[in-house]
């Protein structure tokens, strides 16, 4: 791809980007949110038309005017949110759109054979007749890869493939990629997890503000260089110094014997968080960490147990009850749970506290705009105005709008669920700084994160969760990755 340009209203998303991939190579594409990675890949996959520039395949200029054209050229795309039909089985999904037929009827046996063949080539075993909605994320991903291979893809684009995988699943994925590489399949690999790049990438290209900044062999790209190129400035440390919790700090959040029947049952959870303290919840995906914070925030109704804020017992039957008591949840999936994407920055920011903006029964828009602009300034939300539709913002800026929504209230307890998932390096640093600021104002923070360094770097205490229960507690000084993983995986007694 060379000289690619793409303009959206008010934004030049790509400004002459050039990029190439060789057969049997994994080429990593990195950059902050909004750098243009997704746009570039959507153009390659035919999901968006380019305004200028050209794409060549095997030295011949090609036109990609739709997803079908990309597919026929051997380009496979695996988005972060998969493109599977959730109610269809693995076989049906793999052959979707290229079903073998006998006359006007589908040839089910041939479909099963083709799918089984594609999976056998990969040495993977999947429950073939189960609807894909009931597969794990890793299994869904394998289904997507099989789908690409059945279509003879020679170039596979993967967007954040490891974001929701456990370490073991990530290892399996990398092994599979290595195998396909040996067969000559090329990969474009988009990731925010810089630490995994040395393991998987051959070359790395950094994008920033819609331009190609540099392409280098992965071996010649230490992480510090990478971060510097991505943000355009040196970043001395990922994590800010957490202000220490003062000895006399009062307990703000007190959870006792909490149980709930969410997607992972929570049993008998008890812990306290003091003013100015961050308690990290570590554990594997599916351990029940999210379910614990959801129960505290009233997103799921607890079946038993007590929650107290500032020593006052509260009854939480709904999110509204929790919010009234000063407990707010920054959910893990901002698009599905945190934002109304079709609404403006202003409307999202004030949504939870609209009553505060009412005057004579009507919403005072001027006051709303003033409050929103203040948050835009304080959180450095990059948006043309408070009236911009949130859908058009980048991931990191969307996350900041979710934060803005809760900062305009008088919350005492902040429950952060995966606060930096899908957020770039610069955005992460800003979110950490904001958490530190909340601590200084006396807030109590509970943080769920799948990134171990983040939990260890940003918590005063770490609680390890497995099977919906708290299994261990470590002070910051004692918490080592080895100890936490041992408890999280059940390796320790």
């Amino acid at each position, binding site marked *: 791809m060379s000289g690619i340009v793409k303009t959206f209203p008010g934004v030049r998303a790509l400004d002459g980007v050039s990029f190439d991939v060789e057969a049997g190579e994994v080429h990593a594409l990195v950059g902050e949110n909004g750098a243009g990675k997704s746009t570039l890949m959507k153009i390659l996959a035919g999901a968006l038309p380019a305004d200028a520039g050209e794409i060549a395949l095997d030295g011949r200029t090609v036109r990609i005017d739709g997803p079908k054209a990309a597919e026929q050229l051997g380009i496979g795309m695996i988005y972060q949110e998969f493109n599977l039909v959730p109610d269809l089985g693995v076989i049906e999904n793999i052959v979707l759109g290229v079903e073998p037929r006998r006359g006007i009827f589908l040839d089910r046996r041939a479909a099963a054979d083709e799918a089984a063949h594609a999976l056998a080539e990969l040495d993977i075993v999947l429950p073939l007749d189960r609807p894909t909605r009931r597969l794990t994320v890793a299994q869904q991903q394998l289904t997507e890869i099989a789908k690409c291979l059945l279509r003879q893809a020679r170039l596979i684009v993967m967007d954040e493939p490891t974001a929701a995988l456990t370490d073991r699943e990530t290892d399996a994925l990398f092994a599979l990629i290595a195998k396909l590489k040996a067969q000559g399949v090329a990969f474009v690999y988009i990731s925010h997890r810089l630490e995994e790049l040395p393991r998987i990438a051959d070359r790395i290209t950094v994008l920033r503000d819609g331009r190609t900044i540099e392409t280098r062999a992965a071996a010649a790209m230490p992480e510090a260089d990478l971060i510097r190129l991505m943000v355009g400035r040196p970043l001395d440390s990922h994590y800010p110094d957490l202000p220490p919790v003062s000895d006399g700090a009062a307990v703000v959040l007190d959870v006792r014997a909490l149980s709930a029947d969410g997607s992972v049952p929570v049993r008998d959870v008890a812990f306290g968080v003091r003013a100015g303290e961050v308690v990290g919840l570590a554990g594997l995906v599916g351990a029940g960490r999210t379910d614990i914070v959801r129960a505290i925030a009233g997103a799921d109704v607890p079946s038993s147990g007590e929650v107290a804020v500032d020593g006052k017992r509260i009854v939480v039957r709904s999110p509204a009850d929790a919010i009234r008591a000063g407990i707010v949840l920054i*959910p893990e999936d901002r698009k599905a749970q*945190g934002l109304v994407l079709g*609404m403006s920055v202003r*409307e999202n920011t004030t*949504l939870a506290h609209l009553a505060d903006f009412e005057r004579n029964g009507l*919403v005072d828009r001027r006051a709303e705009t003033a409050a929103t*602009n203040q948050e835009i*300034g304080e959180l450095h939300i990059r948006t043309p105005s408070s009236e911009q539709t949130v859908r058009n913002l980048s991931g990191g800026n969307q996350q900041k709008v979710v934060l803005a*929504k809760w900062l305009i209230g008088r919350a005492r307890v902040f429950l952060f669920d995966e606060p930096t998932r899908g957020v770039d390096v610069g955005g992460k640093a800003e979110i950490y700084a904001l958490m530190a600021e909340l601590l200084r104002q006396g807030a109590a923070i509970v943080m769920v994160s799948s990134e171990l360094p983040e939990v260890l770097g940003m918590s005063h205490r770490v609680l390890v969760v497995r099977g919906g229960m708290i299994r261990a507690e470590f002070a910051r000084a004692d918490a080592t990755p080895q100890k936490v993983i041992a408890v999280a995986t059940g390796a320790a007694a």
Partner: protein
Amino acid sequence: MAETKVQATLEGRASDATAQARRRSLLRVAAFAAGFIVLVLAVNALTHGDFLTERNLTNVLRQITVNAIMAVGQTFVIITAGIDLSVGSIVGVSGVVAAIVANSLHMSSPFVFVVTLFAALGVGALSGYVNALPVVRLNLPPFITTLAMMQVARGLAYILSHGQPVPLQNSAPFDWLGTGAFAGIPYQVIVMAVVAIAFAVILGRTAYGRYVLALGGNEEAARLAGIDTRRTKTIVYVISGGCAALAGLLLMARFASGSPQSGTGYELQCIAAVVVGGTSLMGGRGSIVGTFFGALLIGVLNNVMNLLNIESYTQQIVLGIVILLAVILDELRKRYLAR
């Protein structure tokens, strides 16, 4: 220093954006107005001057009142990504109930009117509440619950009226509303205007209206923001039922009789007005002003075709095509804006 500068740029950018938006919307209004005037003059010429008469225009407005009022309520439901199929039957049953209640009262006119009004609105609101219950409690699709109510309410209308229209024994309390006018404007049109303006303000300017839009855009996010989504949704169906009942009362007053058949098929008419008015069936987006113009467009079209002596079968075809065209145009406009 640096902070002031940031603030200044922010404000500068914001006011730039608003000024630009204002210019653009002004331009759009001007284009609309110009197109509208040309269209009206053309139609007037086509109908040999019959269209642009005070009598005919008043007539158009009176003809759209029932549909417009129903469509206002339906707009709220559709914004939450729901649908209310029961409104036509609610028109029927509330008209019948209104006539029966009015006939059973022996009071002075104003009392009869007020009691009847509350009876009709009560029937509509209750129907809406019953519609909403299985939707918010069991998560049933509104298509089904309101389809059931459409059958039940129609059946009730026939049972209560013994299958016959119920004529008013004394139409005096309702004559002003049925056929009267204030300064040349029919009271029915005034009622429509009041309803449309009141609900436009509720949707556009109150917290409740914002919650309805948020709920339609992303129900889970709205719930996690502390909004009582069940209550918000229930009220939406109560509003729709209430609007339909008011429309039923208007029809009853106009004919001095409550007919069990009245309102048959109206649910689709009013959904058409809402959709033509730019409200998304996917939820999260819509406006009362749009709905009013949707109802007006359909009304004007019917009127013009009548003036041109186009037979009613052909009228149906034209109306169907116009509904489709309006939605296609809206979709194209959205795509253009999204680019």
